[in-house]
C-alpha cells in the first residue's frame, strides 16, 4: 500500500520535472526548423552548430579566462550594489534628509539609458573595470528601492514590542528586521542578477575590455559568426541563471538560519 503510494508520488514528480524539459525541447525544435528554413548559418545557426561551437570553446583555457573576467566583474558590481543598496536604504529609512536626497538621485540613475553611463565611464576611466561600474549602477536603484520598501513594511507591532522590552538593536535585527526585509531583498536580487549581466555585457561590447565576453561577442559580429554569437549568449544565460540560483540559495539558507534563531 505504502510502496504503491510512494511509486505514484514519484510518477507525479517525474511528470512535473519533465515539463520544463519538454518546453525547452519544443523551442529548440522551432529553432532547428527556423535554421533549416533560413539555411544560411551566417544569419541563423542551428542548435547543433551552437553545441559543436560550445564544445570547441569549453576545452580552451582562453574560454575559462574570458568567463572568469566577466563573471568576476559583474558579480563584483552586483555585490557592491547589494552592500551599498542595503546601507543606503537603512540610512534613508532612518533619516528624512537622506531619503529626500537619495531617492530622486537613484530614480534618475534608474531612468538614465545605460549607454549614457557606459560612455561617461569610458570618458573618465579605462574599460578594465567598466562592467563593475555599470552592473553596480544598474542594480543599485533596484535593491535600494526594494530594501527601503521592505524596511517600511516591517511589522510595527513587533517594533513596538522591541521598544517596550528594550531589545538591543543587534538582537532585534535578526529577529524582526531582517526576516521582514529579506523577501523584498530576494525579489530585488532576482531582478538585479539579470540586470547586472545584461548591462555588464552591453558595456563590454561597447568598451571592449580585453579578454571579456563582450569582446568575444563583438568579434562574432566582425567575423559574421552567428555560431559564436549564439554560443556565447548561451554561456551568458547559463552564468546568469547559475548566479541567480546561487544568490537565492544563500538567501534561503540565511532565512532558515534566522528561523532557528541561531544568528540571534
Amino acid at each position, binding site marked *: 500500500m505504502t510502496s504503491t503510494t510512494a511509486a505514484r508520488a514519484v510518477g507525479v514528480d517525474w511528470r512535473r520535472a519533465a515539463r520544463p524539459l519538454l518546453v525547452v525541447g519544443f523551442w529548440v525544435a522551432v529553432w532547428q526548423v527556423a535554421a533549416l528554413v533560413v539555411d544560411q548559418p551566417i544569419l541563423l545557426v542551428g542548435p547543433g552548430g551552437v553545441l559543436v561551437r560550445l564544445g570547441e570553446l569549453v576545452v580552451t583555457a582562453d574560454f575559462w579566462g574570458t568567463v572568469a573576467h566577466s563573471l568576476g566583474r559583474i558579480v563584483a558590481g552586483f555585490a557592491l550594489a547589494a552592500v551599498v543598496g542595503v546601507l543606503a536604504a537603512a540610512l534613508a529609512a532612518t533619516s528624512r534628509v537622506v531619503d529626500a536626497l537619495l531617492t530622486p538621485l537613484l530614480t534618475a540613475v534608474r531612468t538614465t539609458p545605460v549607454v549614457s553611463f557606459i560612455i561617461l565611464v569610458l570618458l573618465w576611466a579605462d574599460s578594465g573595470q567598466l562592467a563593475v561600474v555599470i552592473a553596480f549602477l544598474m542594480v543599485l536603484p533596484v535593491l535600494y528601492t526594494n530594501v527601503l520598501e521592505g524596511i517600511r513594511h516591517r511589522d510595527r*507591532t*513587533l517594533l*513596538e*514590542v522591541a*521598544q*517596550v*522590552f*528594550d*531589545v538591543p538593536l543587534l*538582537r532585534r535585527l535578526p*529577529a*524582526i528586521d531582517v*526576516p521582514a526585509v529579506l523577501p523584498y531583498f530576494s525579489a530585488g536580487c532576482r531582478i538585479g542578477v539579470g540586470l547586472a549581466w545584461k548591462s555588464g555585457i552591453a558595456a563590454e561590447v561597447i568598451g571592449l575590455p580585453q579578454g571579456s565576453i563582450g569582446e568575444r561577442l563583438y568579434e562574432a559580429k566582425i567575423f559574421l559568426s552567428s555560431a559564436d554569437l549564439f554560443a556565447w549568449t548561451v554561456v551568458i544565460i547559463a552564468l546568469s541563471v547559475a548566479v541567480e540560483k546561487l544568490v537565492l540559495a544563500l538567501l534561503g539558507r540565511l532565512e532558515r538560519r*534566522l*528561523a532557528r*534563531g541561531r544568528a*540571534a
Partner: protein
Amino acid sequence: MITLRGVGRRFGDQVVLDGLDLDLPRGEVIALMGPNGSGKTTLARLLLGLDAPDAGAIEGLAGCRTAAVFQEDRLCAQLTAVSNVRLVLDRGVRAAAVAAELALVGLSAESMAQPVRELSGGQRRRVAIVRALMAPAGLVVLDEPFTGLDETAKPLVMAYVRERCAHRTTLLITHDRAEVEAFGARLVELAPPG
C-alpha cells in the same frame, strides 16, 4: 511609585483621556476596567512609552524597564516559543530556564520546538504571557491577557500570572470582575467616553 497627574490624550476631535489622576504604587497590582473606548489601551501605551500625553505628566517611569502582554500576541512568527521569550531577556538566561517556565503554563516540549506560527492561538497567548513575566521589568502591563485561552488552561495560566506578578508593579486591564478579585487587585474604573 508611578504617578499620573491630569493626563489627557486626544486623537483629532476625540478626547480619549481627560485629566486622569492615577497612582501605581510600587509592587502592587492595579486592575483597570472600563467600557470600550474609555482609554484603557491608550493609558497602557502611555505607560509603556509608546505614546505621549497631550496634557498632564507621568512621573516615576525614568529608568523603569517595561514589559507587556498586548491585546494581540505580537510574537516573531518564524521563531520558536523559547527564542521569542529569550529575545527580551538579558544575556545569560539559559534556554532550559525558559523551557521550564513555558512548561509551567502547560506548553509541551514538542510545541516549544516549533515556530510559533504553527502553534494554536491559546498556545501563542501563553508564550506572550511568559515573555512578559520573565522579562526583567519594573512595570508590567497586561492588556486583557487571558483572552483566547480555553477554560481548562485559564486557571493554570492565571495562577502562574498571579504568582509572577506578586510584588511587581502591574497594570491589569480586564473586562472580567472575577479576574480583579482573583488578583486581589485595587480596581480603577475609567468612565465611558463622552
